[in-house]
């Protein structure tokens, strides 16, 4: 076989694809899927322990840590770095500014991830998931692993900026960044801020763990930690929304109703969203953190970021509606939705991801982050409900959706078992949805604590107590939802691995035929003069707004019945 050329032109998107970029996308995507598999296996132990107390607490804590690090950090960040290589290099038709730096970044991330996995597997002190607050102390290699991983990720982000610069310098791209690259750019800026704050907490933790620093202030450490912990999720948010726009373009030729509004919404993230860290500091001793601080940080400015999200909540479905109307599905309010390509797993992933993220993940984030409402939510399973709604039903499902395009367009293989792939988003989405609903109710209504593996026996202690019957019923709902999600996740990994290893190689002609972007063709970014209006999206958004306000008020009503506090 002849040596592949240095670059090729994608028959579907028209992008100039450099082999160096393509290889980096592939490597990071493969690492991401491996982490997804490991985290998914760990999820089995976590699920059955919470559902029916199947494993002892010490096993639970260990697998919870593996589940959390693999899925929330390794799977998502490897995938995001792949996304940055795609957006920076491929979408701007340029070679990465330095492929060597890309590989160094990748190597550091793999090394860091392996160190964290090893630390968790070998020492119970490292059974720390995302509340690893001192004086809880892991071993030095645990913190060193996180630092190496973060340095690698930071290098990957730096390479993205250098590559965007190169595209302009060499003239392979002119004019404004396409919306998808713009979104990736915002995610990258958030990532730099996040990773630097991460250094602020993990470097001292490492030094303390190694005996060089005598002690850490637990309060200051937690405040700084969430300056890393929550913004890291805002990178995911920006990346997820970027992928949504990309999916709407690939699946129905979508384009945002207004580039200006969508970009302004991304800018709102840059301005305000990292203050979401205050969400984790709502039930702290006031006096240590004042009411005014909480109100400004989560209330005013955070709600500017919420505004950004609500704008995307309009613009993303709006993008699908525009694409569909341009293709001729113009009748009534919802013909565009009915006649959508539901057989395409990437499209159903997009719809489920947007809907579940919005209704379950997004609304609950705002509610849990509201100062007083947090009294009912803090550290209960409702918080698990919230973040599974965001990063699993939202981010993970969106990344799974785009994978159905990565396989043919980057790996150039035909997806194995396409008929199974159609079911995958539904299995996964409905499963996670059930799990989330049950966790929300268990937390807010019944106060079920998170990270509590022994709620059935409490080790047989004299102060042990029983829960109302509804708790067991809801746990069964969560269990069944979890099983469906696991099945959906396993199906995803199986199909992806089978495709990469055994999928039929596709020629340019076959690719063009099977994956052609629907009208209007070509490079996103230059629209026809007049875009169609999106009345269907407007109606859907009104329904969403009503739901949101009702949920919010309902939570205050629920709180009003609790014991008076603070007066």
């Amino acid at each position, binding site marked *: 076989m002849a040596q592949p050329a240095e670059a090729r032109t994608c028959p579907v998107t028209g992008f100039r694809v450099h082999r160096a970029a393509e290889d980096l996308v592939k490597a990071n995507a493969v690492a991401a899927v491996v982490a997804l598999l490991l985290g998914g296996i760990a999820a089995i132990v976590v699920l059955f322990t919470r559902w029916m107390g199947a494993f002892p*607490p*010490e096993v639970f*804590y260990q697998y919870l840590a593996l589940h959390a690090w693999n899925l929330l950090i390794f799977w998502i960040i490897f995938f995001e770095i792949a996304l940055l290589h795609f957006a920076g290099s491929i979408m701007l038709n340029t070679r990465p500014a330095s492929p060597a730096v890309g590989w160094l970044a990748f190597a550091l991330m793999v090394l860091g991830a392996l160190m964290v996995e090893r630390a968790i597997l070998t020492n*119970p002190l490292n059974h*720390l998931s995302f509340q690893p607050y001192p*004086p809880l102390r892991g071993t030095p290699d645990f913190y060193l692993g996180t630092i190496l991983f973060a340095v690698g990720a930071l290098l990957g982000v730096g390479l993205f900026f250098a590559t965007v610069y190169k595209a302009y310098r060499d003239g392979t791209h*002119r004019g*404004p960044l396409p919306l998808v690259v713009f979104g990736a750019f915002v995610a990258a800026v958030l990532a730099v801020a996040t990773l630097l704050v991460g250094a602020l907490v993990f470097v001292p933790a490492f030094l303390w763990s190694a005996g060089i620093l005598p002690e850490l202030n*637990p309060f200051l450490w937690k405040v700084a930690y969430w300056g890393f912990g929550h913004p890291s999720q805002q990178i995911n948010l920006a990346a997820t929304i970027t992928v949504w726009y990309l999916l709407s373009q690939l699946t129905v030729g979508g384009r945002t*109703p*207004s*580039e*200006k*509004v969508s970009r302004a919404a991304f800018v709102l993230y840059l301005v305000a969203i990292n203050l979401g860290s205050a969400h984790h*500091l709502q*039930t*702290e*001793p*006031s*006096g240590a953190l004042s*009411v005014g601080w909480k109100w400004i940080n989560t*209330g*005013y400015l955070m*709600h*500017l970021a*919420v*505004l950004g999200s609500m*704008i995307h909540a309009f613009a993303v479905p709006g993008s699908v509606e525009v694409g569909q109307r341009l293709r001729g599905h113009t009748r009534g309010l919802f013909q565009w939705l009915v006649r959508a390509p539901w057989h395409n797993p990437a499209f159903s992933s997009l719809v489920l991801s947007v809907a579940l993220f919005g209704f379950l993940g997004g609304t609950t984030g*705002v509610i849990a982050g*509201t100062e*007083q409402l*947090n*009294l*009912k939510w*803090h550290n*209960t399973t409702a918080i698990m409900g919230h973040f599974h709604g965001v990063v699993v039903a939202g981010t993970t499902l969106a990344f799974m959706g785009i994978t159905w395009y990565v396989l043919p367009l980057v790996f150039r293989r035909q997806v194995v078992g396409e008929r199974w792939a159609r079911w995958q988003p539904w299995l996964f989405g409905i499963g996670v949805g059930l799990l989330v609903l049950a966790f929300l109710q268990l937390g807010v209504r*019944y106060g079920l*604590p998170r*990270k*509590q593996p022994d709620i059935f026996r409490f080790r047989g*202690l*004299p102060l042990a*107590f029983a829960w*109302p019957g509804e708790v067991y019923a809801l746990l069964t709902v969560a269990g069944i939802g979890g099983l469906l999600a696991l099945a959906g996740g396993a199906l995803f990994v199986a199909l992806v691995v089978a495709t990469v290893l055994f999928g039929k190689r596709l020629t340019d002609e076959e690719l063009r035929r099977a994956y052609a972007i629907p009208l209007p063709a070509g490079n996103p970014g*230059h629209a026809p003069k007049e875009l169609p209006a*999106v009345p269907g999206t*407007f109606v859907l*958004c*009104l329904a969403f*707004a009503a739901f949101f*306000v009702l949920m*919010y008020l309902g939570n205050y009503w629920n*709180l*009003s019945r*609790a*014991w*008076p*506090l*603070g*007066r």
Partner: protein
Amino acid sequence: MAPGAWWEEPVHPLERAWVVIAAVIAVGFFSATMLLWHAFGQQNVTGRAYRVDPKAYQAEVERFVQRYKVGEEAGQPVVAPPPGSDVYLLAQRFRFYPILRLKAGERYVLHVASIDYLHGFSITQPHVWNLQLYPGYEWVVPFVPREPGTYHMACNDFCGVGHEMMLGKIVVER
């Protein structure tokens, strides 16, 4: 290739309407509600907090226990302070100390602190509310145990292997 000057595009009236609605809900309504609840709501995360030496706090809790102790249960003292008084709780791996017996509808001033790790103060069954505790910080916050009953507490912030054993109890009498 068209330059795509996106900042000059007009925005469709429907989308403009949505941006206004979203801004009113998010920036106006949500932010205002948080503030109004401080003025009129009964459940707020207010009170005071002090840095406190863990040993001194432990001694203070012990004095409180000796003064109002009325019995023992599950190896823990049961303490019944008079209505309106200051009540003390201590969180440590892996217990909430002591067991409290209170009168329904009366106002108490809660003092609570951890003496070792971060803990989650959760009155979970029946569910009331949850607070975050830090080593070395003493929360002082008034509250009213409104309905009579037996209230079970559990730590809901991971504090090491054994966290699952960290339980407590508050009995509220008529």
